[in-house]
Structures are given as C-alpha cells and as structure tokens.
C-alpha cells in the first residue's frame, strides 16, 4: 500500500474505533435499567385475560393508578398471569395486578455506589479509557506506517488497546450477571427471610443507589416490592465494543477485512475458552465452599461467600499428596516405557520394509479394541501370576502397553512425513542407525513426539478402572482411585472431590505448558517435509 492510502485507512479505522467507544458510552447513558416498586397490588383468582372478572378487576386497578398519577407519581400497571393445570385436568388461573412506581437508571448511575456491579462497570470504563489512550499515544505521528514497520513501544501500545477491549467485552455479561444477582435473587431471598447475612450492608448501599441514602429505615419496605427489568439493549454493548475491537485490530495493516477476521477469531477463541473453563469454574467455586454451601438451592452464589481454604488442608490430611505422587510415578513411568518401546517400533514401521508390516499394524490396533473394563479378569489373572498385584509397577506396565497403539501410530505418521535424506546423510557420515534416530530424526519429529507423550501421560494419569481392581492398599492408590473416598455410602463430599480433582489437573497442565512450545518448534528446526 502506498503512503497516503495507509494513512487514509488508518484514519478511518481510528474514526471507527472512536465511533464504537462513543456508541458504547451513549448506550450506557440510556435508561437501560428500570426498577418497579409496587405501591398497590390486587390478586384476582380464577380469572382469565379478557373475561368479565378481568374487566372488573382491571377497572378497579386503573382507578387506583389514576389516583397516584393525580398525586404526581409516575406509576404503571403490571399484569402477571399464572396458569396451571391441576390434577383433575382443569386449568386454573391467577392474575396479579400491580401498580408500580418506576425508577429509570442508566448505567452511569451504578458508578461509585459500592455495588458489586459498580466495580465491574468501573473496570469496564477504565479498560475503555486505556484502549483509547494507548491507541492515541501509539498513533500520534505513526498513522502513516504499516504495523510491521512500527517500533516496539508503539506495537506494544496497540496490543494493550486490543487486550483492554477484549477484557471490556467480557465484562459486559459479568456486569449484567452481577446486577441480576443483587437486585433479583439476593433481594428476593432477603425479603423472604431465607437468608439474613449481609442484609443491612446491602440495603444501605441500595438506599444510597436509589435515594442518595435519604430513605433510612424505610428502605426495607420499598425494596420489598422492587422488581428489576433490564432492556435487551444492554446486550448491544457487546457489538458496540466489538466495533472498536475490530477497528483496533485493523489498525495493524489498515484493512477492515483482516480486522474483522481477527476480531471474529478472538471472539471465537474467547467463546471456546469460556465453554472449556466453565466446568472448572464450577469445580473451583465448589471446591472452596463449606459443606453446607455446596448445595446452592436458591441460585444465589456465583462464588463462595467464604473461601474455605481449609478444604485443601483437609484433603492433604486424607492422603491426596501420596496419591498424586503415585500417579506421577505410574504415569511418568508408563510414558517413558511407552516411548522407549514405541519410538523404535514406529521408526521401523516408517523407514523399513519387511514382511508382516501390515499384520503388525493390525496387531497394534487390535490391542486397543477391548475396553479395560472388559479385560479386568484377564489382567488381574496376569498380575497374579507375575506377582504384580497391588503394585505400582504392574499399573505402569499395563498403562504403557495400553498406550502403545497410539504412540506407534502417531509417531509413524510423523516419521513418514519427515524426509529421510538427513538421516541418510548422517549415516553416510558414519552415524549408526541409533545415532541417526536420536540425533537427527527425534529432534525433527518433536511435535509428533510431544503430542504422543502428552497423550500417553494423560491417559495413564486418568486410568481408573484397572487401578481400582489391581490396587488394594491405601498407600498404592493413584489419584483417580483416591478421589473415590470422597463419595461414600452416606454422602458425596463435593467440595473435597472437586478440590482433589483440581489438584489432579494441575500437574498435567504444568507438564503441557512446559513442553507446549515443541508443538510448534518442529518446523523451524530445519528442512522438513518430503
């Protein structure tokens, strides 16, 4: 692109970014939230919308509303229809009319009120400010240059803007969530006196929010009849911020198309990550709850009210570290053994011609076709004859054997896709086959080897069925079996079970993160691909 074109494109994108931010702020200033406080309620049983009884009741309520309007209140009539079919198959209906006074609030009125959503909103605004400032700072005098010619500092600033916008985007649903928790779930439970903890503190904050703290003790009555409604327009904040994000991304090379693709990519990745992490969020909040709170029957808590860290020390007391060590030993050993046996076999499959090659492949794949559940009797018989019952060695060998198929298959595929020229060169230089394998092929095949390694480790780490039957003393249990002690005849201790499961996930994730770079390193290491 030529100099003026780049400049023009970047200017346009900057404009778009500002439009997105201004649109967001504009939406925030609209009265998106309305709160209805009931001043008069009439219930009418066995009434169906439109029938005679309904007309009567409606007229009565209208009259009351007129009264209020005459006194200068801004009131509205709400209608709530509850229909139900009883056991005799008859439909009954109950209509509730409520005359309400309405308070309209825009999002800025949540700021600085000490509510949970106030924090989220403040963070959102701060992130938007950061994005705006860093784009401005990064662009002054550089809006005519393509991204790849920018200096490091400017690039960093643009990265910051993008990160801030992504985070702000995520905070939108968080804000909505927090508001609903406070105004809908929590309030209704306080009013029904199902819970009492923290009631006064919250009511004081709400008094501050609605009436600048003037209501005092009377606040309870007002809140007793409070109903929150948010306009669906709240969700429009997400596309509005997305516009800014796309614009910020397009600043890279000035093309809206690539910015849009990038933006879509980020959104996709965020969605995938959120869905993936969702069960872990549930595990985490449950793992640190008290036993009593694991049953959140009123859908009140998105996080523990009190983080019970002693759950961790409890499971440590009950042997979890020992089980983890056992698992590390078994899974580590099984992985090492599976690789030691699998790499040579895969090498032979990829590089040599011999009779029975296909038969071996069939043999390997056949070894996978029975579930361990089915093979229990045979395995246990084998372990008895070998005196490996109730030993970690036995478990290790079984796991190594059961993962041979995958290791050989994946490694064979990787080896085949790597040209043999470099090994041949090495061998001509006087290396033996083993040296050619370890010094030349294995480094080049790193991505495949790492994948196989992780796979075998994870499979061995998660193996459960065989371990339950083979291991019969507490000190030899792997973690998968150890966790079962938290689910007994009398109760399931969800908090311990999930705390232990989280602990069991950590070593695998650490292992993965430490070798993840090899997943991508393969290509750069040389002239691969034949």
């Amino acid at each position: 692109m030529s100099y003026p074109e780049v400049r023009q494109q970047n200017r346009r994108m900057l404009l778009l970014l500002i439009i997105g931010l201004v649109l967001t702020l504009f939406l925030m200033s609209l009265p998106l939230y309305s709160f209805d406080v009931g001043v008069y309620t009439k219930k009418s049983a066995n009434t169906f919308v439109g029938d005679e009884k309904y007309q009567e009741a409606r007229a009565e309520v209208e009259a009351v509303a007129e009264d209020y309007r005459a006194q200068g209140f801004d009131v509205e009539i709400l209608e709530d229809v509850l229909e139900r079919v009883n056991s005799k198959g008859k439909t009954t209906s109950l209509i509730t009319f409520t005359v309400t006074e309405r308070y309209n609030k825009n999002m800025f009125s949540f700021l600085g009120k000490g509510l949970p959503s106030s924090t989220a909103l403040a963070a959102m605004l701060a992130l938007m400010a950061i994005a705006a400032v860093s784009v401005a700072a990064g662009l002054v005098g550089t809006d005519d240059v393509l991204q790849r010619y920018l200096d490091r500092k400017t690039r960093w600033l643009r990265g910051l803007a993008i990160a801030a916008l992504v985070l702000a985007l995520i905070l939108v649903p968080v804000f909505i969530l927090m508001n609903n928790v406070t105004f809908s779930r929590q309030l209704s439970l306080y009013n029904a006196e199902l819970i009492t903890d923290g009631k006064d503190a919250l009511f004081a904050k709400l008094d501050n929010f609605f009436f600048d703290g003037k209501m005092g003790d009377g606040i309870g009555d007002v809140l007793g009849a409070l109903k929150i409604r948010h306009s669906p327009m709240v969700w429009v904040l997400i596309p509005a911020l997305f516009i800014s994000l796309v614009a910020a991304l397009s600043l890279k090379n000035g093309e809206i198309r690539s910015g849009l693709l990038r933006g879509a990519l980020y959104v996709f990745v965020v969605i995938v990550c959120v869905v993936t992490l969702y069960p872990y969020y549930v595990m985490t909040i449950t793992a640190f709850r008290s036993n009593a709170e694991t049953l959140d029957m009123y859908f009140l808590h998105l996080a523990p009210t009190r983080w019970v860290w002693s759950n961790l020390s409890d499971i440590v007391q009950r042997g979890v570290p020992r089980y983890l060590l056992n698992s590390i030993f078994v899974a580590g050993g099984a992985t090492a053994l599976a690789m030691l046996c699998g790499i040579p076999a895969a090498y032979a499959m990829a590089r040599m011609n011999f009779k029975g090659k296909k038969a071996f492949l069939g043999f390997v794949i056949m070894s996978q076709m029975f579930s361990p559940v089915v093979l229990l009797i045979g395995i246990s018989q084998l372990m008895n004859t070998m005196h490996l019952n109730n030993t970690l060695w036995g478990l290790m060998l079984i796991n190594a054997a059961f993962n041979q198929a995958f290791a050989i298959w994946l490694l064979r595929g990787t080896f085949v896709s790597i040209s043999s020229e470099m090994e041949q060169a090495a061998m001509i230089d006087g290396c033996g086959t083993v040296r050619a394998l370890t010094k030349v092929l294995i480094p080049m095949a790193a991505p495949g080897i790492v994948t196989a390694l992780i796979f075998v480790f994870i499979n061995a780490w998660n193996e459960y069925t065989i371990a339950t039957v083979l291991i019969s003393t507490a000190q030899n249990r792997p973690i998968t079996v150890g966790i079962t002690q938290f689910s007994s005849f009398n109760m399931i201790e969800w908090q311990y079970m999930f705390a232990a499961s989280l602990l069991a996930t950590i070593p695998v994730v650490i292992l993965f993160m430490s070798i993840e770079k090899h997943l991508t390193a393969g290509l750069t290491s040389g002239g691969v691909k034949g």
Partner: protein
Amino acid sequence: MKKLFALFLIVALMLCMVPAAFAADDEITLDVIICQYGPNTNDWFLGKGMDGSNFVEKFEAANPGIKLNLDVVSWNDVYTEVDTRIANDNAPDILNIDVFANYANEGLLMPVKDYCPEDLFGDFFPSFIDQSVIDDTVWAVPDLASARALFYNVDIFDEIGEEVPTTWAELQDVSQAILDYYDGEIYPWGIDMTTDEGQAAFAYYTWGNGGGFVDENGDWAVNSAENVEAIEYAISLVNDGYTNPNPATQTRYDLQDMFAAGKLAMVIAPNQLPTYVADKGGEINMATAGLPANEGKTSSSVGVMDRVMAFKDDSAPDQAARNEAIGKFLKFFYDPENYVGWVSMEGFLPAVNSAVEALVAADPTFEAWLDVLGGCQFYPAAKAEWDQVKQGVIAAEQNALTGADVQAELDALQAELTK
C-alpha cells in the same frame, strides 16, 4: 545397537520379576475388604481416625503373628473388585458387603460356626442372624443395620396446617396442598427409583399394600395384584407432579440434599438423615413417622443390613490357624471398645447386644430407632435370585416411568423367575 536392545529386554524382564509379597512362614496374612460407609471410614481403618491410630495398627499390635491387608473400597467398585478376585481364585479372606447368597450357594464361603467364637456368636441379634441363613447354615454375620422411616419437614406442615399422612389417599391430598401453597417451589414427596436403590421404593410401596417380593411361602411373587397396584400408585405420584422430577436418576444423595435445603417436604430415608442434614448446614426442623400405607393395610418399616463373611481358601497351609485368625479379627472388630466408636461414627445401628448400652447412653434417640429396627422387614437377600429380582424390579419401575404397563413389566419378570 544390539546392546541397547539387550538392555531393553533385561529391563522389561526385570520389571516383570519384581516380586510382590514376602510373607514370613509363621505369619498369617488376612486379605480384608471393607466397604466405605461414610467420609471417615478410610481414616478409621487406615489413617488416624481411631484416636490418632487406626484399626489395622491396633489389631496387629494386639494380635502378633497376624497381618492385615485391608482395603476400604467404595460401594461403586466393590462388586467389580470382589467378582474379579473370585474369578481369579483370589477371593479375599474376609469381606464386608451386603449380599451373600451367591457366594454361599456356590460353595465359596465358610459356615460362620467354623470361625466365629461362641460368645461372639451369641452376642448378635438373633433376628439379624436369621437373615443370613441358607439351608439351616449361617453363612455371614451382620456388621450393622439401618432402618428407614418417613422424615418430614415440620415447618412446612405447620405452615400449611396439615397433618402427616398415614394413608396413600392422605398423601395425595397433602401433596396437592403443599404444591398449591408453595407454588410448586417445594416438592412434596421424594421418590428414588434409580439403578442404585430402586428396589427400596419397590419395598416401601408394595409392603405398604400387603404385597412384597415373595408370597407367604417364601416364593417369588413380584407380579401380585397388590404389587401392581402399589407401583401404579407410586408412578401416579410422579405423574401428578407430587415428587422430585427425575426419579430414575435422582439418587438418595439428591433427595437428602433437597431435604436438607428445605426443598423437599417428605422423604423416606435411613436413620442417619439428621446427622447428614446437620453436616450440610441445613437447619431443618424435622420429625419422623411411619411409612404411609394403603387404606386398610399396615405399613412396615424397612430395614437394610450389611454383612461380614469369610471365604474358603484351600491353599492356606494351616486351616485351623487361619480360622482362628479370622475369629480374632471378628472378636477385635466387635469388641465394644472398637465397635461402638465405629457404629456411631458411621451413624448406623448396631448388630450386637454388647454395643447397645454404650450407644444408648451416648445418644438417647438410638433407643427409639432400635425399636423401629425390631419391627423391620428385610429384603429376601438369602434367595439366590435376589440380584436378578433387584435389577428386575428397578427396570420395571423405570420402564413404568416412561409409560410402560406395570402389570406387563412385572409379569415378564415373574415369568423369567419361574422359568
């Protein structure tokens, strides 16, 4: 390169030859499998749950020459583990489980009199011992029991001003009242027809209608008219919306949890429920009552009992010494000093007379429960087909939940049993 492979081979062979156990000749090792009842079972037997020590350590200190290889297994896995070991001729010496008939019928168990000391045998409640008899031989001894009763949330009943139902018709009326009053927010009645314990539901309703698993001669009679009526009634409770919504997958845990949170007004549960609710932080004002029965029929409470049994081991060099060791294990286990602590920790009811006094002293409600237990009916677990019947009635219930005809389902099961 050859060297490398020689090395591989040697390592592989060595790994295969790592020997497992070196037992000294004059020592007897007993393989024991205990089921995991509560969160502390494992700690009591193997950890530090017995005054800083554990059962195994204490036993081995008190009985030199006997070693325990004791495993605490979760109920989910215990059948798998035991059956697999039996298939490999590697049965445990002592097993704690609920069923025994198959093991006894197939000649795997030793008669209790072969190893149980006389004085201990006399200590068991006779009515419990009777539940483990096949062909006049006692094959297992009870380790503990629990009794089921109807628990209800007193606050809910006070609020709506209704009495606890005693008949099926009253149950329907009360359920409707609860449903109406609480707008469907509270489930009136808990029902559990899961694969784990659906046979209990079968017992609750059929026994409350004069039916049951067997007829008066002790022969299977699962398709009697009373049974069909009872199960149809239970299913109608579900279909009318009086119960928790998914009886086929909502287990006892779920029902207990809902009850503890005040979301369930009535549930049939074991005597440990109050302890459980307290652990869960629920402040439920609860009381117990008899199970509702059909008009004109009497209700009968349901007792559940687990057992301890000893397997034959023809390869043991000294059978007499082995029997004596098993006897010592039982003696030590049922010694009030150990047994009372265990039963009260698990929250169950005892199986031996010598434990009663101490338990009643510790918890006055125990006595009432012992009375309930006295009038309990038990599952016909001594009959060989019990496993099949248990799964059969559960399948029938679950099929009925999805709309199948109860009569046809139970007829099919009965036909299979009398085939």
